[in-house]
């Protein structure tokens, strides 16, 4: 196994000082190259080319966005360099760029992450830059604010609603559920063989918390107090759906895309999901479905769904670049661009007028548009404290659905963790 190599006794030094210098220089070059390689664009460059980053990795969003960026870039007179990274690496990438002081000129940031980024001080205040938010939904504007300043504006938003398979409902002689009791009863009746009545994502991340929040908020619960009776009521609903077999035990491992696959394949009669799934579902000609607002605890209640979607932000660089980037954002938020983008990508325009037009022209979007009026930004209650509480909530959901923990004790555990 081991070999011993003996050097000849009279070993001459073959490397002179010159070689040493060359080696050191080469190594230093490698190191500096790595150091600067992380920045894309950076503040030193001219203002003819702006950098942009987002995490859309699926059609049609990832093909529509570059087209609209090119169009707005042309209007403002700049070239926009488009970069796309996976969702899981998006925030780490931005933080890395922030530490190198080379935030991209434009970034499309998931709205609950906006607070964190705004807190760094690396983003340009869009209110100071004179960007108007008139005509946009107030809740959407609020989702992009940090300490009273607007740092991000969403061109379009999304929410959650209940999709139902019309063929299955017709065969069972049912109408889409409006209340929790109807949801439970319908789900039980529609569960048959390998088919579940309802599907949702209860994965242990922000995604699972996002899916639970419509039920959590509609019941009247508050993220500042996770162990309220209202929160317990909502979690009990989900737990009963799983323990009765109306929803698969696998919901704790499903992402929203997995839920969509199950619904598309006919393995679930109903699902909780967002409008961004519409392009995929519409492509499936054999599938017939309708969309209604999320069921509420009693007929008098209004659904309160979390606002999803991304906001445009501008990173600090120099005055000339920042001004151009703000102009691009203004173009992206324009009535026509925002409406076109929203339609192609399955989003609801932030502009109230454009949203109303969409609800009229597109019946599939009506339920989502209807909910936006009462929707809530996730960071409204907690600001930068949101990620931690969302994680605690996701853990509580999983403990109740997969671990046999009672909703009450799962939630009180979550509240303790959130306060820690």
């Amino acid at each position: 196994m081991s070999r011993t190599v003996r050097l000849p006794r009279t070993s001459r030094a073959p490397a002179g000082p010159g070689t040493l210098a060359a080696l050191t220089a080469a190594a230093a070059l490698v190191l500096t190259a790595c150091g600067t390689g992380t920045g894309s664009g950076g503040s030193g460059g001219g203002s003819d080319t702006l950098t942009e980053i987002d995490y859309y990795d699926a059609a049609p969003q990832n093909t529509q966005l570059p087209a609209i960026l090119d169009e707005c870039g042309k209007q403002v007179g700049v070239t926009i360099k488009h970069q796309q990274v996976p969702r899981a690496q998006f925030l780490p990438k931005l933080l890395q760029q922030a530490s190198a002081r080379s935030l991209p000129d434009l970034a499309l940031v998931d709205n609950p992450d906006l607070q964190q980024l705004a807190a760094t001080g690396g983003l340009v205040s869009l209110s100071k830059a004179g960007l108007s938010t008139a005509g946009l939904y107030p809740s959407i504007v609020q989702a992009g604010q940090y300490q009273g300043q607007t740092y991000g504006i969403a061109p379009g938003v999304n929410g959650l609603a209940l999709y139902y398979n019309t063929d299955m409902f017709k065969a069972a002689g049912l109408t889409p559920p409006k209340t929790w009791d109807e949801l439970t009863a319908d789900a039980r009746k529609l569960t048959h063989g390998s088919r579940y009545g309802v599907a949702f994502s209860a994965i242990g991340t922000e995604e699972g918390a996002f899916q639970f929040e419509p039920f959590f908020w509609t019941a009247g619960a508050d993220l500042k107090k996770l162990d309220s009776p209202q929160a317990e009521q909502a979690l009990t609903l989900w737990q009963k759906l799983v323990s009765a077999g109306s929803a698969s035990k696998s919901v704790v491992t499903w992402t929203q895309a997995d839920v969509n696959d199950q619904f598309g394949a006919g393995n679930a009669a109903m699902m909780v999901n967002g409008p961004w799934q519409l392009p995929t579902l519409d492509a499936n000609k054999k599938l017939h479905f309708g969309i209604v607002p999320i069921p509420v605890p009693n007929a008098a209640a209004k659904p309160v769904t979390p606002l999803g979607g991304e906001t445009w932000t501008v990173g600090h660089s120099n005055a000339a670049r920042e001004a151009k980037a703000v102009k691009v954002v203004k173009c992206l938020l324009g009535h026509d661009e925002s409406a076109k983008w929203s339609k192609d990508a399955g989003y609801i325009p932030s502009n109230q007028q454009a949203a109303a037009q969409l609800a009229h022209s597109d019946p599939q979007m009506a339920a989502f548009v209807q909910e936006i009026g009462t929707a809530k930004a996730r960071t409204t209650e907690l600001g930068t404290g949101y990620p931690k509480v969302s994680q605690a909530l996701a853990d509580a959901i999983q403990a109740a659905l997969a671990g046999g923990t009672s909703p009450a004790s799962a939630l009180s555990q979550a509240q303790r963790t959130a306060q820690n």
Partner: protein
Amino acid sequence: MSTTLHHAGARPAGPGADRPPKPRPRTAGPARARLAALAFTAPAWLYVAGFYLYPLAGSVRMGFQNYTVSSFYTGVAPYVGWANYRAVLHDSHFVRTVTNTLLFTAGSLLFQFCVGLALAVFFNRAFPLGGPLRSLLLVPWLLPLVVSGTAWRWILDTDSGVLNHALLGAHLIGHPVPWLASTHDSLIAVTLVNIWVGIPFNMVILYGGLQSIPRELYEAAALDGANAWRRFRHITLPLLRPVTAVVLTLGLIYTVKVFDVIMILTQGGPAGSSQTLTTFAYNLSFQQLEFGRGAAVGNLLVLVAVVFAAVYLRATREQRRAGR
């Protein structure tokens, strides 16, 4: 595997050295030789300093800081002493995470080693098509973990997974097992997949060890009337001990830091039931954005790895001495 360089100057004069040491040629100059030595080691040192020492020091420092999202931009992160470590130790997930890490590591090592050894012994005897079969067993090792992990996610799915279908078909279980969806089964499931991933490595190294055991020993033992079990017990196992030490320590270091398998299969869930220290560190840093606490957990992991790396270095040193 290891190559030792004996430099002229570094060689101690043993008791057997009866010749007087030769005077060095003065013309070359020891200073110049030292410079040359430096020139040869400089790239390695630069590499180690840039890619190991600097980030490691950064991680240790971050463990003592209140490192928030804005610290990335402003560079300001106040020192908080041991607060991050205290917070991690008192975290409601900590005890369970450590227990999970221990169970996951011990379970993986035990079965990887036993199955790997059994396969190595099996393939140590020449038989037709043994070679191709052995190379096929390496496939799990060659596949990217994202690929095999995703495949296992499908296999282990509660409703449509092929494993539950097979078990139901064989009447071994009454109803589908929620492998990845139950807090009772998820740790078992991720451990099983990790065992599958690790078997080829154990098999290959142990097979190499078996090949180096002289055949004559077995022939002599057989002549003396030792049966197969006694030959295995008294020849194979003792002579395989140095290789075993290497396999187990390396396996331990690999297993403690396993991340992708768990992340792909369960993301540490449901409800933290398959969370190990690695996914815990990831969760703290990149889900909850508590970078200081994440770094603290990471540093604990590094400490564990360093301890076992020391054990490994010791084992290989002894092995080298034994081999000489």
